């Protein structure tokens, strides 16, 4: 049986040391999706986490124009204190105006030290929660800050929180208490490689908390795709992970 896939984590825009075989443009992304039979993808722009968050987000919207049926933009967000983005409620209003249905929050980005500070992110996360816009959180260059994640999930209980870049097998022990204690906590599976790991999570917590993402073009599309397709769970559970869970979260966004 072949699953239908909705990719929660694709990127356009280049980064240093990028492998040229894996494309960074919209056309190249669409070709890759066609090759592997991926129906839709949520996309972010490389500039928005490392170089210029506002220009990265704007460029993303511009480049995805005309591809709304398959490519949905995800904006990077941050606190407003540096003036790079407007205050949280205004930023979220703009996201709603532009049809942005997923926010990305990058901590510990290479070369910077942007960390979670509850007092600085309160308005933003509160506004995202009000709009039910899922936030995908990544600790790019270090182990995720589990206590920060738990605090976010506990404070904003109606905010869908998706951890990404959770790749290392040994970390999964830390997912279990988060999944057990916080119903709004989800895991995006790109790069994860635990032995029967997705199956174990499904057995204990059900399939609703795992989201398929490829992390293309950093990773190859087929890695996580193959793991999800071949996990030893019923087809309906695999299909939820491959596409339906993400579609459900996006459908709950209040326009």
């Amino acid at each position, binding site marked *: 049986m072949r699953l239908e896939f909705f990719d929660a984590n694709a990127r356009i825009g280049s980064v240093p040391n990028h492998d040229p075989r894996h494309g960074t443009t919209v056309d190249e992304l669409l070709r890759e999706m066609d090759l592997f039979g991926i129906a839709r993808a949520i996309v972010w722009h490389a500039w928005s986490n490392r170089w210029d968050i506002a220009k990265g987000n704007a460029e993303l919207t511009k480049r995805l124009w005309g591809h709304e049926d398959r490519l949905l933009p995800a904006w990077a967000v941050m606190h407003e204190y540096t003036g790079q983005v407007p205050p949280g409620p205004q930023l979220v209003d703009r996201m709603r105006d532009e049809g942005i249905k997923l926010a990305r929050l990058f901590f510990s980005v290479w070369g910077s030290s942007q960390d979670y500070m509850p007092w600085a992110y309160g308005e933003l996360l509160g506004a995202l929660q009000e709009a039910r816009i899922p936030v995908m959180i990544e600790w790019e260059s270090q182990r995720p800050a589990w206590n920060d994640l738990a605090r976010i999930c506990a404070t904003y209980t109606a905010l869908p929180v998706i951890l990404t870049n959770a790749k290392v097998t040994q970390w999964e022990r830390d997912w279990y208490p988060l999944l057990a204690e916080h119903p709004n906590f989800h895991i995006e599976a790109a790069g994860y490689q635990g032995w029967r790991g997705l*199956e174990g999570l499904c*057995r204990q917590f059900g399939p609703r908390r795992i989201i398929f993402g490829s992390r293309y073009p950093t990773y190859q599309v087929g890695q996580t795709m193959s793991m999800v397709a071949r996990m030893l769970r019923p087809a309906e559970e695999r299909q939820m992970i491959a596409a339906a869970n993400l579609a459900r979260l996006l459908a709950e966004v209040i326009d």
Partner: protein
Amino acid sequence: MHADRFIQLCGSDEPLSDTLVIDGHCHVGQWIGMHAIERDIEGIMEVADAVGIDRLCINYAACPEMRLGNDLVADCMRRYPGRIEGVCYVNFFEGGEQVQRAELTRCFDELGFRGVKIIDMRGSFYPQTRDWFEEDDPLRPTWEFAQERGAGILCHGYLTYELARRYPGANFIVAHGSGVPAFMLKLVDVQNVYCDMSATSMLAGTLELLCEAMGPERVLYGSDLPASDPGQRLGMVMDAKISEAAKTLILGRNMQGLLDNVS
């Protein structure tokens, strides 16, 4: 790039039934600091059948008691005849040269093993971990044994350019080599060095780079199960931007050649 049959299978649960798949890097037993379900041999074979892995090269999970661990691998071989290739784990801390050679001989001649595994458990892995001279090398009996038998050695650490050149009759497989492509590129011109692709980190383009530099004949599919998921690692090969023939070599044909070389 067209969607070859492997790419078409990436999003499917169909096993790779018409392709020889040999997983070159497998373990049985518990591993340090990990949680995972169904890690015993029954759980492993259930996944192997579902994914389409024909044979598994298994060594014990680097336990400190090498004889005990090798016996457990032999037990798996007896329970699944024809499916499991025993790989003898050697730990030089457990005895002198005679103990090392005796265990290798026992595993190969009595238990039917066809490969060797060494791992540096002292904490340093790559790129250079040997810190003794040739005459003091505590693993010399293992290198010599592999040379005599034409066996492959899955090296997690220890391997150097000079070592591989010194024992041209042995085949050296760099465990998790795809995670250290810069190290692999230093060994490109040593023809008896192979790259195991069971790395925890493998960025897009790595497999293609290794195939271009070393040739697909020297890259081996390995999953590191049950530390890692074989489906994820299979996906890395299936979706790579290399020829279908190259994928077939990496998935099983290359390892078959190494196993057939053992006397």
